[in-house]
């Protein structure tokens, strides 16, 4: 009964369903097979193929009337023996590849049921090849052969299937469609159980496969250009071309089609063809062939010429050639429909062209392959590596064969080390999903098992740090011919600049550059760079707080690398190790200079950090630069420069130091190396900051606080900071609040925020669990704050921080600073954006949502709770 829906009768549909059903069961059963199971089956299949190579070749020639028996027998042997040689040691089951250094493994998953279309030109060899591929990859195959090659194709499949089943393959893993029609094939292509279509055949079949909506492997038509360049070994080239073009009477789609010959060797090459038994066509003969072996209506090769011998073609079209003529060589003047013999010809007719230069030859070869053969194969004969390279880069072919026969070369494994195949992918140029020689890996889904990897960490320590009272004397040991001291007017007035001068080597020329004591702007930086250039400074001594030292860092960067672009270098990044921007390397610097940083606050720690902060041109946004090349070469941590620091500055900068330590402690980049430093800095701050605040001239307190700032600086240079800094930068820049004070206003709110269960965790391969609250608890333990539970200890730490801030007379809230609430509210979107754009939060243990950033700012606006006095134990802080 006719089923009008798809043109198949009920019986036919039932028959095809049966094929699919058997294949589906076999494919399912195959999934249980191990690597040794399949390898045990493949080998006897290969032997059976070899034993039947000649018989199958005879069947193929008899049925298709194409090609040469002897060459078809060789193809059958290549399809078995050579393919086996490639696949025998290949892992195709279970774990197929492992990358232990990447904690990665690749695991094979079979495809299932593959509908495999077979060509008329290579019917038996393709069937043999695909059966071996199927077993090796544990797939089931349904063959649909070309109607004019069905008997020989299926006989090859039967030999393979019977041998395989006899050695343990599941019954039904290979089936075929008897008397296949286009309608059958279309129906199978759309069957849900068919998981892949492997279409080795003509363009129409391949097009149908890709139109089916199923994953498909196709092949494309070839139109192989050959560039026979002047330096080539002409004898070898001509023999290779004849060997290839006559192989199986030219039926392999990779065989040579048009040979483009350099002018200076053109006549010699043609003479060699003639000597070796080829007929050189006269213009009249070219014209005759153009209208006989090429169909004038379509411009494509006439099917009746495919796979016929040269002498037979000559006889049929009415040409006189010598007996035993191997090839008909036809000079053509161009490429395209006006030159019919420039099309693909799967028979022993070879077009030749003359090229006046390499450039001309490459263009002609490009034109040939573009005329119906894009992505397939191209050949070059040359001894010039540059020309071979140029050919490879110019010509769009999946197989660029060098100094070898095209057809046999493209098969792979014979003349070269390409993967052996009987299916040539032609890439997107040929409308295919692959440009590879189709092989076992195209018959697999390769899964990846990716184990967690730890990101590599580092711990960088400053080059040189001199500390304790009078450490500045070490300046004398640093030779310099021209030193620029960068400082601010207040410090110069206090005589600190003179202190520096006194300790520089006597022969050093010294210039002093004073800049305002606030975050530097571009103008300040530019002016500083000009000064450095004018004095040809080989040393910069930055004496000041964070702003002065940061300014000096950026001045040094631009002084040494004038082409550096600050906008580019301050581009956002997620991971310092992977970021796009590269800072100038040492080798790229035009000038070298030494940066000595002497901090006059305790402090930002910037004397040892790789960070520098400046203000954007509008003065409302802070820009952070981050690179280890920014870290000063020498840090001098000398408490004489902080004795007598006013209480407010002592408090603000001291809390900045505490914030660095606490944030480094809970950062996702924290490590045992940074934790030890962070914790020690916290101890020192709690012990000595109140003393330094209340007794500005207390040398011991100043010295220890100065050390604490440097130690915290080393900690956060490696572990970075967090959301506290992002928020402080945002509202500090907008409302002109000093950095330390801004940090202080945020600190208790951020501790509470980080210690609570996050709405969103920060993705971090190095963090095994959320531990911020535990680290705060550990800090509380080290400070002797008490508490029975983690929550209790966090509360104790919060209490200690509030108590410290109160003791330092830090305002309780942003509101207390006198900022108008309306203005604060209006600025909120800008503040949240600035905070989120700030890279500081990227190392925060808790990923801040925009709404959370806003809430934190409002919390700080409203202010911290009143604190009770808290006794902090700082044993071990000395």
């Amino acid at each position: 009964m006719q089923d009008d829906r798809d043109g198949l009768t009920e019986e036919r549909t039932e028959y095809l369903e049966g094929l699919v059903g058997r294949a589906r069961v076999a494919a399912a059963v195959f999934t249980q097979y191990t690597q040794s199971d399949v390898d045990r089956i493949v080998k006897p299949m290969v032997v059976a193929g070899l034993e039947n190579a000649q018989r199958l070749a005879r069947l193929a020639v008899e049925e298709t009337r194409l090609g040469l028996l002897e060459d078809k027998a060789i193809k059958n042997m290549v399809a078995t023996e050579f393919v086996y040689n490639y696949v025998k040691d290949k892992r195709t089951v279970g774990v197929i590849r492992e990358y232990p250094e990447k904690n990665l493994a690749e695991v094979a998953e079979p495809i299932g049921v593959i509908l495999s279309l077979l060509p008329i030109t290579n019917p038996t060899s393709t069937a043999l090849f695909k059966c071996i591929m199927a077993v090796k990859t544990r797939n089931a195959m349904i063959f649909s052969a070309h109607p004019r090659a069905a008997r020989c194709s299926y006989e090859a499949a039967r030999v393979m299937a019977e041998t395989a089943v006899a050695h343990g393959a599941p019954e039904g893993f290979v089936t075929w469609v008897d008397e296949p029609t286009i309608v059958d094939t279309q129906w199978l292509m759309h069957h849900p159980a068919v998981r892949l279509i492997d279409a080795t055949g003509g363009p129409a079949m391949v097009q149908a496969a890709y139109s089916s909506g199923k994953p498909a492997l196709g092949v494309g038509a070839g139109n192989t250009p050959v560039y026979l360049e002047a330096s080539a070994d002409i004898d070898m080239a001509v023999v290779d071309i004849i060997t290839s073009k006559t192989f199986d009477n030219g039926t392999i789609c990779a065989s040579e089609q048009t040979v483009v010959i350099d002018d200076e060797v053109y006549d010699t090459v043609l003479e060699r063809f003639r000597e070796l038994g080829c007929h050189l066509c006269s213009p009249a003969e070219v014209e005759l062939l153009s209208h006989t072996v090429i169909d004038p209506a379509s411009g494509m090769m006439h099917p009746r010429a495919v796979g016929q011998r040269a002498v037979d073609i000559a006889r049929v079209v009415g040409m006189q050639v010598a007996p035993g003529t191997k090839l008909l060589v036809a000079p053509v003047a161009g490429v395209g429909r006006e030159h019919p013999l420039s099309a693909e010809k799967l028979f022993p007719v070879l077009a030749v062209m003359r090229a006046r230069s390499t450039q001309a030859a490459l263009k002609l070869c490009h034109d040939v392959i573009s005329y119906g053969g894009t992505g397939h194969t191209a050949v070059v004969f040359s001894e010039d590596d540059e020309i071979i390279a140029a050919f490879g880069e110019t010509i769009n072919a999946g197989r660029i064969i060098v100094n070898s026969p095209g057809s046999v070369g493209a098969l792979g494994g014979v003349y070269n080390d390409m993967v052996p195949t009987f299916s040539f992918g032609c890439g997107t140029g040929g409308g295919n999903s692959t440009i590879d020689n189709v092989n076992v890996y195209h018959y697999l889904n390769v899964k990846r098992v990716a184990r967690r990897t730890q990101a590599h960490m580092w711990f960088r320590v400053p080059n040189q740090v001199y500390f304790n009272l009078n450490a500045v004397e070490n300046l004398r040991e640093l030779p310099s011919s021209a030193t620029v001291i960068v400082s601010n007017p207040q410090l110069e007035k206090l005589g600190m600049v003179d202190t520096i001068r006194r300790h520089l080597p006597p022969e050093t020329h010294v210039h002093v550059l004073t800049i305002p004591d606030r975050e530097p702007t571009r103008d300040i930086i530019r002016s500083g760079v000009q000064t450095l250039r004018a004095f040809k400074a080989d040393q910069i001594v930055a004496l000041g707080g964070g702003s002065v030292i940061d300014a000096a860092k950026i001045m040094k960067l631009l002084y040494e690398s004038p082409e550096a672009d600050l906008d580019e270098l301050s581009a956002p990044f997620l991971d310092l190790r992977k970021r796009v921007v590269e800072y100038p390397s040492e080798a790229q610097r035009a000038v070298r200079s030494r940066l000595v940083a002497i901090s006059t606050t305790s402090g930002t720690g910037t004397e040892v950090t790789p960070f520098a902060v400046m203000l954007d041109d509008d003065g409302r946004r802070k820009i952070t630069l981050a690179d280890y090349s920014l870290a000063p070469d020498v840090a001098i941590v000398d408490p004489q420069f902080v004795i007598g620091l006013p209480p407010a500055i002592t408090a603000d900068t001291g809390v900045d130091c505490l914030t660095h330590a606490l944030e480094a402690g809970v950062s996702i980049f924290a490590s045992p190396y940074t934790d030890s430093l962070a914790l020690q800095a916290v101890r020192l701050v709690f012990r000595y900051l109140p003393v330094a605040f209340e007794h500005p001239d207390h040398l011991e307190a100043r010295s220890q606080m100065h050390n604490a700032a440097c130690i915290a600086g080393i900690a956060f240079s490696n572990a970075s900071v967090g959301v506290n800094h992002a928020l402080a930068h945002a509202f500090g820049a907008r409302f002109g609040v000093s950095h330390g004070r801004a940090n202080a206003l945020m600190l208790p709110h951020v501790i509470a925020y980080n210690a609570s269960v996050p709405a969103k965790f920060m993705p971090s391969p190095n963090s095994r669990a959320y531990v911020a609250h535990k680290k705060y608890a550990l800090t509380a333990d080290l400070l002797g704050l008490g508490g029975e539970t983690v929550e209790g200890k966090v509360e104790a730490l919060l209490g200690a921080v509030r108590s410290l801030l109160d003791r330092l007379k830090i305002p309780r809230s942003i509101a207390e600073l006198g900022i108008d609430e309306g203005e604060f509210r209006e600025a909120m979107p800008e503040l949240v954006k600035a905070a989120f754009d700030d890279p500081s939060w990227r190392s925060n243990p808790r990923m801040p949502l925009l709404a959370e950033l806003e809430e934190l700012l409002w919390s700080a606006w409203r202010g911290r709770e009143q604190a009770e006095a808290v006794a902090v134990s700082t044993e071990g802080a000395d």
Partner: protein
Amino acid sequence: MTNTLLFRVDPDDLPGALDEARAAFERSPDAEVMLDLAALRRIDTAGVVALAELARAAAGRSVRLRARGVNVAVYKVLRLAGAADGIAFATD
């Protein structure tokens, strides 16, 4: 109360066991048939076909066909082959 007929499948004679199961539910149409496949490490095409036929027969007679002790490799084969339809697998 449902009468559950339990059949422990011998991997060396899967078709035989399935025939027995089929005969049993044809005798007791209200029963539920439980196949214990714990001993079955691997299944071939004949086994898959036989199970699929049993499942179809059970469905035709409204007999509930269940299976327990199925290892994941065999389970995967049955699912991929479309032979698991009509079989309720115990979560073990």
